[in-house]
């Protein structure tokens, strides 16, 4: 098989914008995504909602509707699209291992763009493995993809823009929200970044609008919530917490947790690309140059997978990566790239100015980053924070040694749900910065495939 010019992993705003841009400049492009339709996380299900499910648009709101144009431009381009395709391997030599319809194969590309977006940060609280406890983004995905909302009483807990957005969407859909529990927002710390967020345009007004709509609907709101726990026998029955020194218990059928989103760095880490710890966002991101190029020749990263910047920034980052791919493959020269990308570079920078404010306003709560001993931190292998600390005391020097000794990160999610927590706990126990402690070495396949599929790899 001859190599394609540009292989893109992820059909979210970054990947779609990059694909359209590169294809418009004459590159052969294929976008691989494990979902069945384009849009990524933010615009999940957008084609269906823009078409037959138009009634749901009122609930999902205008920010979601903006995805229509992004997807249309991609569809109008000559870029190829391989949906329902998992990328389980990217090699340094720019070969991709893909899995589609139970068939595994290798694809060669002259350039690779990783646009795998974000994941929700893990929210380890007592009881978070109970059926009835989900991430807020999960509930939102159900709304986007299937037009579904909680049937019974629901509690939203945590912090971050997405939590308020979900609450606003639930309100618009007439959902009975039993309570919104905010685990703490740091207005004082965020204040110095206020001018920047204003200049970034729209972000502040949007956020305040969401909060206002939730308040107006009379949703009970608790601030500075601590000691959050999900309780129930085999199923969630209630949410317990303290707020303002008072212990409370709210019966609920569903608890939606959220502590912000973090870069989904799994694929890049498995190559491995060089990564760095971002203190402000408390997550890892690949080390990139101004054009999104990683330390491995021909492999670039754009969008939230390069560090959280939001959907609008992702579109511009994707376009910038598209121009850079055309330059790297000799379609345009550096001067032409600079000229064409200038508008996107300026817009990208403007959108990123909103981040310091949002990052400072919604820091993940310490009790959720560094949970108490009895809290399960690795859901796959059922390992508690206490077991991790014990492994550290017995000479477990970092995440990889602790993984060997406790089996954290050895399940099928390979650390997506525990990696950050493990690094945080170890750093805390050793009194070292997380950057010095490091993280798991991610190994392929980054998503499981069957022995049979692997044996038949083409």
């Amino acid at each position: 098989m001859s190599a394609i010019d540009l292989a893109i992993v992820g059909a979210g705003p970054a990947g779609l914008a990059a694909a359209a841009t590169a294809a418009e400049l004459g590159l052969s492009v294929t976008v691989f995504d494990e979902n069945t339709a384009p849009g990524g996380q933010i615009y999940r299900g957008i084609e269906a909602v823009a078409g037959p499910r138009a009634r749901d648009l009122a609930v999902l709101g205008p920010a979601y509707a903006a995805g229509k144009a992004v997807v249309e431009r991609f569809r109008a381009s000559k870029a190829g699209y391989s949906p329902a395709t998992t990328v389980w391997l990217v090699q340094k030599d720019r070969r991709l291992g893909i899995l589609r319809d139970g068939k595994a194969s290798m694809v060669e590309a002259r350039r690779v763009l990783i646009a795998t977006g974000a994941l929700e940060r893990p929210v380890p609280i007592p009881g978070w493995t109970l059926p009835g406890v989900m991430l807020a983004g999960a509930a939102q995905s159900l709304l986007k993809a299937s037009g579904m909302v909680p049937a019974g009483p629901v509690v939203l807990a945590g912090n971050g823009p997405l939590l308020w957005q979900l609450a606003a969407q639930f309100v618009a859909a007439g959902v009975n929200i039993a309570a919104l529990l905010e685990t703490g927002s740091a207005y004082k710390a965020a204040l110095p970044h206020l001018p920047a967020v204003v200049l970034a345009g729209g972000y502040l007004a949007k956020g305040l609008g969401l909060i206002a709509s939730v308040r107006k609907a009379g949703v009970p709101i608790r601030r500075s919530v601590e000691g959050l726990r999900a309780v129930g026998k085999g199923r969630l029955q209630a949410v317990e917490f303290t707020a303002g020194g008072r212990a409370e218990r709210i019966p609920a059928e569903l608890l939606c947790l959220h502590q912000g989103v973090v870069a989904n760095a799994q694929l890049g880490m498995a190559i491995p690309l060089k990564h760095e710890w971002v203190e402000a966002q408390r997550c890892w991101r690949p080390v990139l140059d101004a054009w999104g190029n990683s330390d491995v020749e021909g492999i670039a990263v754009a969008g939230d997978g390069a560090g959280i910047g939001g959907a609008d920034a992702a579109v511009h980052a994707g376009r910038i990566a598209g121009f850079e791919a055309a330059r790297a493959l000799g379609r345009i020269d550096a001067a032409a790239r600079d000229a064409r990308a200038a508008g996107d570079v300026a817009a990208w920078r403007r959108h990123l100015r909103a981040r310091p404010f949002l990052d400072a306003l919604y820091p993940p709560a310490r009790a959720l980053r560094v949970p108490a001993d009895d809290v399960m931190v690795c859901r796959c292998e059922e390992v508690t924070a206490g077991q991790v600390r014990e492994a550290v005391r017995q000479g477990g020097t970092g995440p990889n040694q602790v993984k060997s000794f406790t089996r954290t990160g050895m399940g099928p999610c390979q650390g997506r749900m525990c990696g950050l927590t493990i690094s945080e706990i170890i750093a805390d126990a050793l009194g070292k910065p997380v950057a010095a402690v490091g993280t798991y070495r991610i190994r392929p396949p980054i998503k499981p495939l069957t022995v049979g599929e692997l044996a038949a790899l083409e």
Partner: protein
Amino acid sequence: MSDAEYIVVGGGLVGSAIGYGLLRRGRRVVVLDEGDVALRASRGNFGLVWVQGKGLGMPAYADWARLSADVWPEFYTELTQRTGIDVNYRKPGGFQLCMGEADLAERVKSIDQLRAQQGAKGYDCEVVDRRRLDNIVPGLGPDIVAGMYCPHDGHVSPLRLLKALHKALGNAYRPNGAATAIRAVAGGYSVDAGGITHAAPRVVLAAGLGNLPMCAMLGFKLPVRPQRGQILVTERLPAFLDYPLSGVRQTEEGSVMMGSSREEVGYDNGTTPETMRSIAANGIRVFPKLQHARVVRAWGALRILAPDEFPIYQTVPGHDGVMVATCHSGVSLAGAHALRFAGHLADWRLPEHFSAFHSRRFDVPKTA
């Protein structure tokens, strides 16, 4: 400065087992190790405690491998008692499966040679034909014609083993500091590691591939090289396999390990899709039903190999206070290292028959 009698450089399975063996004899030891990220075969191996087929061409090694399997049960019990950690050692005997008649003939021949070599001591290994094998290991694929069974073979969780040894070492285990210098000083040797200078009369170099630079500092060219092995591991499966097989085993947690390749690629411990594919294909040849199991991870790790793949135990030429210990099967030999080898180190005298393990064996010019 420390008042240790022994400095063990390397906290993998070899260094940790030796350190533990010295400690349980009441010796004062420090075991120096690197940190979280290191070349560490002890964290990437297959977990077999294996005897069959080992030592053809070196009777001393055949004996040593067998002795280790013999003392492993005692080692296991003691380690569990001391640490409370069950390292899941099981000794049901193991099978080397034979794919086709030619393979079987080859295996039988080498076991016959071993038996001849071992003479009066005998060699426990029998051919189990396919009909009998089906009752013992159900679900094998059509290419398997027989299995070679050795009752001394077993398996263990190598990760739990390393964890238990570190726990047993307690304060003697000093991670996060690679030894960067070794020199002779009055009354022994000093070793710099992690900003600290340790000194002791005796040093044991058991740092895996890290022994190469350490030996070089003492002017000794240790004849070992890295050899990569890749391993696949599946999600947890229902229990179906009671025995360790040479290339497939089911762990206590239920996941199935498949491996491992032999690749001469220097210090690259990555994985390749081609090798992953061939390991998977081999796994299905052994157990067709494995085709539906999901591979959750693959990894590469580096063996520490001498040219003849046998261990090297010796003092560094010109440095009687520095012992080198390195081997290809540090899991299998952990029992012997802890319960026997450490005893030789306590006396600082290797028994006569250990001369077979000296690297001078490579100096002898081979006759045609």
